[in-house]
């Protein structure tokens, strides 16, 4: 009896020894928030500084007199325009319109992409038939869909929505399909041994296991959606609505370089912010799954 007790204590002791080892190897997650924030921020600040310096250098170089005759604008002329615009309702209106289109289009693409991905990954004949079409669609530049969509839907928001969905859904579907394909066979067997079948197996094992790949597909899908949206807003002008694309084409018409660059900066920043959101989600999953190397507290 006492031997049994000794064994149990030995086991508990071994657990603690191994956990402490793992803990010592892991990074100190809390307590260094300020240092971590700084470590994440300074490369971005540096990148912005480099871009501004290069931009100013290009301006100063005055290629074919583009700067001196007022066609090209440097950061010194542009940034005050951007600052000014940020205090006008027009820009925010445009941002609102564009973002709401992005949200609606991307959500629709997410639904379509997920449904198609789920079906194609599970139904063999569908996969043989549709699998390569999806990849084909993914490589097709979405702008090539516009003539078709404009003939079909006219100059309406539906045209833009249609092209966003066609641009983003294939990437999302492919992300899900790849995730399902790379579900570790061992986890599948473990699920089956637990008695999970069909829908339950899909929901509790296959879907969570394909989440990292699915998010990668969503991220790529977002990039395609954003590009399609910008192309759409430049090509399809809908009267009465101010959008970022519309602002861009208006300032092009007025040869307003400072405004053009300002809108481009806004578009870039929105793209970067959304991308950061996806990276956050990705990092969260990787940490939760223990896929982050905690070797030396980086």
């Amino acid at each position, binding site marked *: 009896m006492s*031997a*049994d007790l000794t*064994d*149990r204590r*030995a*086991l*508990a002791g*071994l*657990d603690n020894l*191994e*956990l402490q080892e*793992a803990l010592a190897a892991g990074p100190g997650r809390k307590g260094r928030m300020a240092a971590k924030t700084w470590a994440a921020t300074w490369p971005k600040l540096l990148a912005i500084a480099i871009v501004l310096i290069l931009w100013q250098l290009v301006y100063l170089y005055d290629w074919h007199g583009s700067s001196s005759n007022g066609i090209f604008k440097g950061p010194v002329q542009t940034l005050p325009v951007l600052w000014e615009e940020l205090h006008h309702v027009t820009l925010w209106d445009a941002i609102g319109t564009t973002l709401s289109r992005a949200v609606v289009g991307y959500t629709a693409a997410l639904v379509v992409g997920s449904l198609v991905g789920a079906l194609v990954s599970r139904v063999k004949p569908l996969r043989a038939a549709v699998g390569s079409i999806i990849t084909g669609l993914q490589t097709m530049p979405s702008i090539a869909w516009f003539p078709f969509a404009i003939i079909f839907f006219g100059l309406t928001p539906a045209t833009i929505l249609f092209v966003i969905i066609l641009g983003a859904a294939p990437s999302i579907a492919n992300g899900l399909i790849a995730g399902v394909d790379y579900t570790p066979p*061992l*986890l599948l*067997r*473990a699920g*089956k*041994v*637990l*008695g*999970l*079948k*069909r829908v*339950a197996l899909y929901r*509790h*094992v296959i879907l*969570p*296991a394909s*989440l990292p790949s699915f998010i990668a597909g969503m991220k790529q899908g977002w990039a395609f959606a954003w590009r399609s949206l910008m192309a759409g807003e430049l090509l399809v002008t809908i009267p009465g609505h101010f959008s970022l694309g519309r602002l861009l084409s208006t300032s092009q018409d007025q040869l307003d370089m400072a405004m053009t660059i300002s809108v481009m900066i806004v578009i870039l920043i929105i793209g970067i912010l959304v991308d950061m959101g996806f990276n956050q989600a990705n990092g969260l*999953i990787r940490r*939760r*799954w*223990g*896929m982050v190397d905690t070797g030396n507290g980086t």
Partner: protein
Amino acid sequence: MSLAGNGRRGTPERAPGFSGVPNLTVVADREPATSVAGPAVRLTDVTKVYGQGTRAVLALDKVSLSVKSGEFTCIIGASGCGKSTLLNLVAGLDQVSSGDLATTGQVTLMFQEPALFPWLSASKNVELALRARGVAKAERRARALELLEAVHLGGFANKRPHELSGGMRQRVAMARALAQDVDVLLMDEPFGALDAMTRDLLHDELERICTERTLTVLFVTHNVREAARLGDRVIVLSSRPGKVIEEYQVPRTGPRRMDSPEVSELAASLTDRLRVEMSRHVR
């Protein structure tokens, strides 16, 4: 070698709904092991062939064995003896090519790797097994904690698998298997990837749990000492194809350890027997 299509009898109770996805509930619907006298697992002339035609590989050749309810049976063999094939068949993950296979009560399989779901905490992993069995949501958490307590991991319920050591993960896997309320536990080299010290302690744990719950265990290993340490009975399989060539009864005289003299003695004769078998394959 046209074994695949020939003389296929199958087991009548298992045959329906047994195409494609393994249907484990068919097994569960039957009488629990305790109410039936006789073997918990019985294989009669079970043959398994992989592939077809000239490329067919005979993995198991007319294997017959039966495991009594509550018995701890170890299966040992060199590479290519079809140990894992055997367990997959009994677990219902694969189908026999010919012969009869009957199991009584609920069966589950533990792998060499813990095979925990990395996105779920230790307790949620156990709870998923309860959920698959249809245990009510309100009960699951408490039951999972009880089971984790049974493998001495009560304090680690909210840890994710990657935060635990290899031995602890394998114990979570054991708690998950117990959550299925099984009568028969199939183990495919479950401690093969662990260090010797952890393995020794887990042997004691497994023995205690099996005795407390009168589990029937079919334990596959290629470690002769492990087989001698754990088994009430040790079955030696030949290689390519797998066939039962020897059976050792191990008298239960009291607590055993890896270094007990009777364990060493049995391990030595198992080693000798396996070496005879391996030398058969010299070309």
